[in-house]
């Protein structure tokens, strides 16, 4: 198989790589670019551990080919914190102890961030439906949902503060 040359943007940085035509985006991120924050759970789009965004759209990296990323904007968990400063969702996940083993956590964070960008004040039901494609076998979900709700509330408060 001849390799494909891909020019893309990952977490705001221009990135170039060579990949096999049947490499998934997840294979590329983890094995070629060493961005191992994105996890492989099922590899079939059922668990959401590999959640990333392509051109701002939440997807499973295991269900996209690496070759498809050419000219697109990819965002992963590695781009979520700004240097040492954690994203509010990351802070709240820590505060609420919304994780145990942590394998699902990057996927949940990326998916929750995508939700809050689209809908800054989601109801609990909306959060549960949005995150239905992210599986967690440790927490029982409740702490995760609380953490997302609390983040939304806090971010809303901050936005209001700025306005006044």
């Amino acid at each position, binding site marked *: *198989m001849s390799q*494909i040359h891909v020019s893309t943007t990952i977490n705001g940085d221009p990135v170039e790589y060579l990949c096999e*035509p*049947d490499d*998934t985006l997840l294979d590329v991120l983890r094995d070629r670019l060493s961005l191992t924050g994105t996890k492989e759970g099922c*590899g*079939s*789009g*059922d668990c*959401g551990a590999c*959640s990333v965004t*392509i051109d701002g*759209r*939440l*997807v*499973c990296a*295991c*269900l*996209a*080919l690496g*070759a*498809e990323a*050419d000219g697109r904007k990819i965002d992963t968990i590695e781009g979520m914190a700004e240097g040492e400063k954690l994203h509010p969702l990351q802070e709240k996940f820590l505060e609420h102890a919304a994780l145990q083993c942590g394998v699902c956590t990057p996927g949940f964070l990326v*998916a929750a961030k*995508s*939700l809050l960008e689209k809908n800054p004040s989601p109801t609990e039901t909306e959060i549960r*439906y*949005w*995150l*239905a*494609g*992210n599986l967690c076998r440790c927490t029982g979900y409740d702490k995760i949902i609380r953490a997302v709700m609390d983040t939304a509330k806090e971010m809303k408060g901050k936005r209001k503060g700025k306005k006044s």
Partner: protein
Amino acid sequence: MRYEAPTSVSEAAKLLAKEKGLARILAGGTDLIVQMKSGMIEPDLVVDIKRIDALKRIKKEKGGFRVGAAVSGAEMEEHEELCALWPGVVEATNLIGSTQVQGRATMAGNLCNASPAADCVPALVAADAVARVVGPKKGRDVPVIKMTTGPGKTTLKRGEFVESIFLPSRKKRSGDAYLRFIPRTEMDIAVVGAGVSLTLDKNGKCSDARLSLGAVAAKVLLVERAAKILIGSNLDEETLEKFAAAASAAAKPIDDKRGTVDFRKKVSGVLARRAAIIAAERAMTTEKKGKK
């Protein structure tokens, strides 16, 4: 395997026509990539159609909408006019998989994957949607009900692919709905699916109706016998009972781990009836909106 991402429909058709081995279209990839990774299929050529601008568009046409084959469920949900005209089709499509899957999965892919339990297909059949098929010869328009023949089997010929799906215009006081039964609330495969599209006249009498059932036969069914029962009625209790019984009678399901024959037949009637009620409510709402 070769990966190609053409920028025009004709270029894509040429690539498919030239390929001697197994070629597959990559739209959302939520079925294709899973099949590739599990070793179910080993394509020699994958043609990504997401770089073809026309196939990424939802376009107004003759009072209806033409939805490109690469348009994802998430993009459909964000299209207010499409949601207003065909809410049942959009809600059926949005039931396919998770938020992440919605970011990629397409109606055309769901149709061509040809699962008897495909969620958007009964809604498309009820809507009398038409797939535009392109390939080495002149394009052709194929009613969605004629696109599949059985599990995994389509009527596409070698080198052909679905370019778009056309959802027609609607008469005043029309509505559609899709319901499915699954043992949980999200992320599962339909045990039974029912799509209803209907039109009411000025007096609230049903003047036109279509019912389609999924997951109760080798392919999605169009149940004209049941739909006829609704026509001319006010969707009164007695009519709905008869309609549900006709839907149950039309279902020809199998027993499997997700449901027994008896259960699926019963649920076919229950869902058909509930979907008809929702479709009628929506038909009334569109009238109210029109009056304003």
